């Protein structure tokens, strides 16, 4: 039955109109993905009045085309100017921008585009494999178990700490504390907002991310001077980009593991997209033979987040279709288009209407191919951005950052909040504290607190006494203990 549905889905692609609509969506997604502060969701929302007037088989490819291209577009600015085009691309800049500074911008872009596109291919097969499993998996994971999955994500925080696990944990804890500002996600009680309307819902995501990454890095770049371009020029045309392509093949284990992590996070409702990228980054670093290179331009640091964020989206598509729970905001709009077809998202979407569900996943793949083709063609020219002198690049990036921040919700406070986090990020970098750890703690804190609250109120204080929760607790202890135990064992080996 799955094979029949797969073949029917393939057959649906014999339509030029479908490809044109996908291409239109991809272009929109790329443009909006590249511009910081204006994401694919904004594009989809702006299109909504037009989408309502389209047929569902025009609307769905358009929306999915936007979705498939937004992160590939966002990776361009993450790598070239250290500003994430979309919050989901935040983890990419951790190594993408350092690669660009080292004169490997083309390689980083090639790795990002390849990881993203290859992940889309892989997710078609992951989806086929997951169809009989998705409902049992989702129904098995209780609220408490989801809370521990988030705690597992937070445990990667310590791993992300560059020099010190303790400082990484402190950074993550600070991120958690910042996430507590505003109303409690379950009870609505105000905390630490001091009566401010702006802080009623806590700090928005965009100023935290832009402030933590863009501003300190620009100041750091200003101090270090211009990119060392020299004779090993940033641009060697497609040769440099091709190197990035082969890197994905060379690091296939990182690629596969990141896809699996991202897909599982996407399938589980309520965890969210940005965390997938950071968790994949953390696992890549932990399992790397050269973890010290992460944060300084390790290509695995680009492959891991770019593949996981794509597979997270694909997993979220399946959950959205099978359970009607949108994995992210853009899925809400996709749901609206699906209900416009007269379909009800639910188990029937993976049984009776499996061919349609597979068509949507394959539209996601098709969008990725179109987007990658455009990006690969442009990548040698895009890489030239890295050679722009700092005197021009830094003010340009800061203006783009400020405009992007203001454009998101038209609030000047977002710009000022980013400045605040920029200064905080500067201080953290100066004293060896880890900024990605703070951001991950901030992203996961709200969801973790909500799930913990629900678990406690539903199951009482022994909420963790469940098989999956106990396994996750064991994994968390292992994550924390891995590095110290490894260090101890290698010391003993050296002594003996």
């Amino acid at each position, binding site marked *: 039955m799955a094979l029949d549905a797969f073949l029917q889905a393939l057959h649906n692609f014999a339509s030029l109109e479908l490809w044109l609509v996908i291409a239109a969506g991809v272009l929109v997604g790329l443009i909006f993905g590249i511009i910081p502060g204006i994401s694919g*969701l*904004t594009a*989809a*929302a*702006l299109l*909504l*009045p037009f989408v*309502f*007037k389209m047929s569902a088989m025009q609307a769905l490819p358009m929306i999915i085309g936007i979705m498939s291209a937004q992160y590939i577009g966002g990776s361009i600015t993450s790598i070239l100017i250290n500003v994430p085009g979309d919050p989901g691309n935040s983890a990419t800049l951790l190594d993408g921008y350092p690669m660009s500074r080292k004169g490997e911008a083309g390689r980083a872009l090639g790795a990002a585009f390849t990881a993203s596109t290859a992940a889309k291919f892989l997710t078609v097969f992951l989806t086929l494999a997951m169809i009989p499993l998705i409902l049992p998996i*989702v*129904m098995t994971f*209780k*609220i408490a178990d989801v809370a521990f999955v988030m705690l597992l994500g937070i445990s990667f925080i310590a791993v992300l700490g560059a020099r010190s696990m303790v400082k990484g944990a402190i950074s993550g804890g600070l991120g958690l504390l910042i996430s507590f500002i505003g109303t409690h*996600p*379950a009870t*609505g009680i105000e905390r630490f907002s001091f*009566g401010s*309307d*702006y802080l*009623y*819902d806590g700090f928005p995501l965009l100023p935290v991310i832009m402030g933590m990454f863009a501003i300190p890095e*620009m100041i750091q770049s*200003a*101090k270090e*001077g211009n990119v060392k371009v020299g004779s090993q020029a940033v641009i060697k045309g497609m040769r440099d980009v091709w190197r990035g392509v082969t890197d994905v093949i060379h690091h296939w284990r990182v690629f596969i593991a990141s896809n699996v992590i991202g897909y599982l996070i996407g399938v589980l*409702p*309520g965890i969210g997209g940005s965390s997938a990228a950071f968790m994949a980054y953390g696992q890549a670093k932990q399992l790397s033979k050269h973890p010290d290179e992460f944060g300084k331009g390790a290509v695995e640091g680009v492959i891991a987040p770019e593949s996981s964020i794509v597979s997270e989206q694909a997993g979220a598509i399946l959950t959205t279709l099978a*359970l*009607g*729970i*949108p994995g992210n*905001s*853009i899925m*809400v*709009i996709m749901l*609206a288009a699906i*209900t*416009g077809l*007269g379909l*009800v998202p*639910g*188990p029937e979407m993976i049984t009776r209407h499996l061919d349609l569900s597979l068509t949507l996943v394959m539209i996601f793949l098709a969008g990725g191919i179109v987007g990658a083709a455009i990006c690969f063609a442009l990548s040698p020219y895009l890489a030239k951005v890295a050679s722009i002198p*700092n*005197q021009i690049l*830094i*003010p340009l990036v*800061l*203006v783009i950052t*400020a405009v992007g921040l*203001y454009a998101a*919700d*038209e609030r*000047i406070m977002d*710009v000022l909040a980013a*400045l605040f986090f920029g200064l905080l990020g500067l201080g953290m970098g100066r004293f060896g504290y880890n900024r990605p750890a703070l951001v991950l703690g901030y992203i996961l804190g709200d969801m973790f607190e*909500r799930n913990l*609250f*629900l678990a406690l*109120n*539903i199951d009482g204080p022994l909420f963790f006494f469940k098989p999956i929760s106990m396994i996750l607790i064991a994994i968390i202890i292992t994550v924390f203990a891995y590095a110290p135990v490894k260090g101890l064992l290698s010391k003993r080996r050296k002594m003996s």
Partner: protein
Amino acid sequence: MTRKAKLLGIFLVTVLAMVVLLIGCAQPSPTPSPSPKPSPAPTQSAADFYKNNTVTIVVGFSAGGGTDTAARLLTAFWTDVTGGSVRIKNQPGGDGILGANAAYDAKPDGLTLGVYTIGSMASGALFKDPAVKYEIGKFTYLGLFGQEAECFGISVKQPAKTMAELQQVKGLKFGSTGKKPEIGLAMVIRLFALQGAYIVPGFPSTPEAGLAAGKGEIDGTAASMSSIKAEVDKGFLKPMLTLDYKKSPWYPNQPTILELIKPTADDQKLLDIYMPLISGRLLFGPPGMPEDRVQYLREVLVKIIASDGLKQMAKAYWNTVQPAVPGAEVAATMAKLKSIPESEIAAFNKVVDSYIRR
């Protein structure tokens, strides 16, 4: 001057210039007016005014959500009816309250409107949410659309088939996604005397509460008819009760509250507060709008909701698209709610709170 100092100088100047530029250009959206005064008498007809000007609809939620989608449905037909243009301004925060505050404070010239759910707008003010800066009796109500009753559904894992059977079960756990479902569930617990039942707040959405019910983690939830139906279709919930006085077209055989119980005088007071807070979106403007523009916009809303195009598009969201409730009727409902003595509101709040586990 060293190179580093020069670069740092460029950076600082750029940042300062940016901030000054943005503060200067920052749109004071919409123009605040601490004591909104009525606009001066207009010099052109309302129809010409709206043909020649762009209306801004403030939505207190992020793009893509239910209220935003409802507002965008309106905008899809706005130009067809008025000949003019409209744009959506998302101003999320405080579960929609900040957007409602912004629309309340806007210049009352009829060019800034708001869309919000009636239940959240009323409950925010009645139960004195500290973020609320508006008074529900003072808005200019243009109409209510997308209205539908609430429904109480229980988990498919719960053996009870009727409310009478459910009354025999002790210690039921219900999940809620916000203030209005909490109130609905509290009504059910109280009116049907469900022993030991309590409400767990904090579910982010009805699908997630439905999923938890499907897993057996909670025993039920309350939400709009269309939301509960979606969970029923997925096989997670069984519909049990229509939380309204009238039958619902979605489940015409399902009993309503008054078919099953005879409320006491005290219970009726609670129902009088709860019932007006049905699901539905309000289109409204700030206090003091010119009367001719108010009448014109009320007619525009009725026309848009009655249009075949919108009915076709909105069918998936609201099943049957009910005619828009006229603005005057909404204003009367809100005035009635506002007139309820504070002691009764406090008593109501106490009843609801007594069932919530925090």
